[in-house]
């Protein structure tokens, strides 16, 4: 039961990063791939009317974490207090900028909101990366099972750590570049014209950078959390994840080379999902690792919701998931195909 809910949570987080990762990645490249106003609007149109649906995976992840592991949610959200509010404010500004930039056809209005859009997307990618880095590295949990993180301490990933140290900053950089590469690949699929060409070129460069950074991150992780790799060895899911990483990255390069962008996007999604699955399986059952004393780490087994709740939820959750996918497909069909450079109109989608 606990393993199932841990997998469901991992699945929801993967969905969020893969889907919203496209929006964030494409968003931060808006000014690099879009040189004219019409091309920048094209980027927003390519993100499409389903971005709120992508973002709901994060809210769903939060709700499901509360349902399945309330202690983990309470401990980690309180511990990451300020960083989470930064994340919230970035999400807020980004949502507003997508929705209102189209309302007035005035170049200053548009530029101001595009700037906020790009900046909040960059901040989001960095914050999500730092958050993943913190979960990988661990947090200074004490024997009461509590912690409170400052933004940084002495930049060392051992002992009394802060949110930012050399390890989490390099994970954040890796996530930033990976989401940019993911976004560029998807933009190449969703657009035509100059934006398509620039995105495709950019994607090819960025993916090479991702490969280089991946090697560095792997060595760093080995040093910071060696047991992560021992865990991976014993977990069949990790092997599945690693296979997906290799197959994914191969298809990204092949797809971009032979101009089958759909194949590249699937590869990119498989690469990101594979890394996350391998990581999630490798750390299981530890959900919050203690950098002060490993025996104080919070595990899935000790912190799962007790009582009948999880069994009951396992009945309604899959039904809700089927509905969610049906809504998505109902809308998605109408927005298939490539997006052209946008004439100046009010309708962003």
């Amino acid at each position, binding site marked *: 039961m606990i393993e199932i809910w841990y997998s469901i949570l991992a699945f929801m987080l993967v969905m969020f990063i893969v889907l919203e990762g496209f929006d964030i990645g494409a968003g931060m490249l808006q000014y690099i791939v879009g040189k004219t106003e019409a091309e920048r609007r094209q980027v927003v149109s390519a993100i499409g009317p389903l971005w709120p649906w992508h973002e709901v995976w994060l809210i769903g992840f939060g709700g499901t974490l509360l349902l399945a592991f309330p202690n983990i949610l309470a401990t980690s959200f309180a511990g990451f207090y300020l960083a989470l509010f930064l994340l919230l404010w970035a999400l807020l500004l980004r949502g507003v900028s997508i929705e209102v930039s189209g309302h007035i056809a005035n170049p200053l209005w548009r530029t101001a909101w595009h700037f906020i859009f790009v900046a909040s997307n960059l901040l989001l990618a960095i914050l999500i990366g730092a958050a993943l880095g913190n979960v990988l590295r661990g947090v200074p949990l004490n024997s009461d099972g509590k912690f409170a993180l400052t933004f940084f301490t002495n930049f060392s990933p051992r002992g009394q750590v802060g949110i930012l140290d050399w390890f989490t900053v390099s994970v954040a950089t890796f996530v930033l570049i990976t989401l940019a590469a993911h976004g560029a690949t998807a933009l190449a699929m969703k657009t035509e014209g100059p934006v398509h060409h620039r995105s495709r070129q950019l994607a090819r460069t960025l993916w090479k950078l991702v490969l280089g950074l991946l090697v560095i991150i792997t060595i760093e992780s080995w040093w910071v959390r060696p047991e992560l790799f021992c865990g991976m060895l014993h977990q069949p899911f990790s092997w599945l994840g690693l296979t997906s990483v290799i197959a994914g990255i191969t298809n990204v390069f092949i797809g971009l080379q032979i101009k089958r962008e759909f194949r590249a996007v699937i590869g990119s999604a498989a690469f990101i999902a594979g890394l996350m699955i391998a990581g999630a399986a490798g750390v299981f059952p530890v959900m919050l690792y203690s950098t002060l004393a490993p025996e104080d780490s919070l595990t899935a087994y000790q912190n799962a919701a007790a009582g009948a*709740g999880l069994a009951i939820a396992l009945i309604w959750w899959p039904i*809700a998931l089927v509905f969610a996918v049906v809504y998505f497909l109902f809308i998605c069909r109408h927005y298939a195909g490539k997006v052209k450079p946008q004439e100046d109109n009010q309708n962003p989608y």
Partner: protein
Amino acid sequence: MEDTLFWSRLQFAFTITFHYLFPQLTMGLVWIIVYFKWRHLRTGDERFASATRFWARIFGINFAVGVVTGLPMEFQFGTNWAGFTKFSGNVIGQTLAMESMFAFFLESAMIGAMVWGEKKLGPSKHFLTVLGVALGSWASGYFILVTNAFMQHPVGYSTAADGSLRLESLAAFLLNPWALVMFLHNQCAAVVTGSFVVTAVGALYALQGKHAEQASLFLKTGTLVGLCSCVLVAFPTGDRQAKMVAHHQPVTLAAMEGHFTTGANVGLNFIGQPNIREKRIDNPIYMPGALSMLAFGHMNSSVQGLDDFPEDQWPTNIDLLYYAYHVMAGLGTLFILLMVIANLQRWRGRLETSRGLLWALMLAFPFPYIATTAGWMTAELGRQPWLIFGLFRTSQGVSDVVNGGNVLFTLIGFTGLYFVLGVLFLFLIGREIAHGPQAIYTIGKLEVSHD
């Protein structure tokens, strides 16, 4: 600790109050849009099509602000109220997860297509998206009200050995009688807000002598829906809600009414100032026996006063609770009066020429927002000092690792951000209303130019 509790309460109160200004309109307005769209489908009348488009654009702006201000609410369960989450997460996690899984996925998939996708989807599928958003927003309301109802009147749980709560019966939890009554009361209030806004825009156009066809449609629909919903908010839903409070939270009822001493044949105060020190109401105007009648159905029923309860169980801010409740109830009564007059005039065919009444209808739209906010203040202040009534105190729920300064910092951040958001919102809504419902957009190009 004390600081953290105070600032966390203020931050939650501020963010939820600001947030709920938007869903209360969208939840009410969405059914009026469903009606316009349905009439367009049935009759093919362009009037209804442009009314749908106009209100969908107003809806879209409200919805966007509602979504972005809603995100912090869910986060605060963990960031500021970790103690509460640890204590009751096994129970309330169900509805919070259901809300995102059943309601948010539906709303978020449909909203973009509802506001912008009319041409792409065609009329009948577009109708489906409007209906989807309507159902999603009401489902979301229900799940969140079940969560709140559990805090007001906990049912369907058991207590584990470590003191935290366990879910005992999902059915009992989801069908909490408090939730059912509160949902109906709250949703009717949302329809009041929606109908007052539609009426106000109709009155504005009528007074300006612009968009005559739409003005008359908005006035007709707004006042009719307004009358029905105003009556339903008071009776039976408001009445049932009061009886629910009398039955399950007698101390709250006593504080709401400023009723200090237990006794039979208790009067209902219309006006008067609670004097906590002297334990009485100063300068009251009241109707004898009415509180006994309303709460328990008989003039001679005994109603418990605050003196029946230990002071550490009294709501922590009785004055504010008393005034909030009276503002809500008083405004609710005036709404019925206004809507009865408006409907009488409409029935006599004089509504669009009664300028005084049109002015009143145009300026009335902020008051449902005030009444709804006061109503929620009544519910939430009345619950104090408990976070879960009778089980768990508010002071136990706050995150103990977060210091007060951090919460003050984020509260200041929210204040600034929401101020800017509020100004932006008013600016965009003002533009939409100034353009009016005649602005019809074709694919790719504006028919009616802006500015």
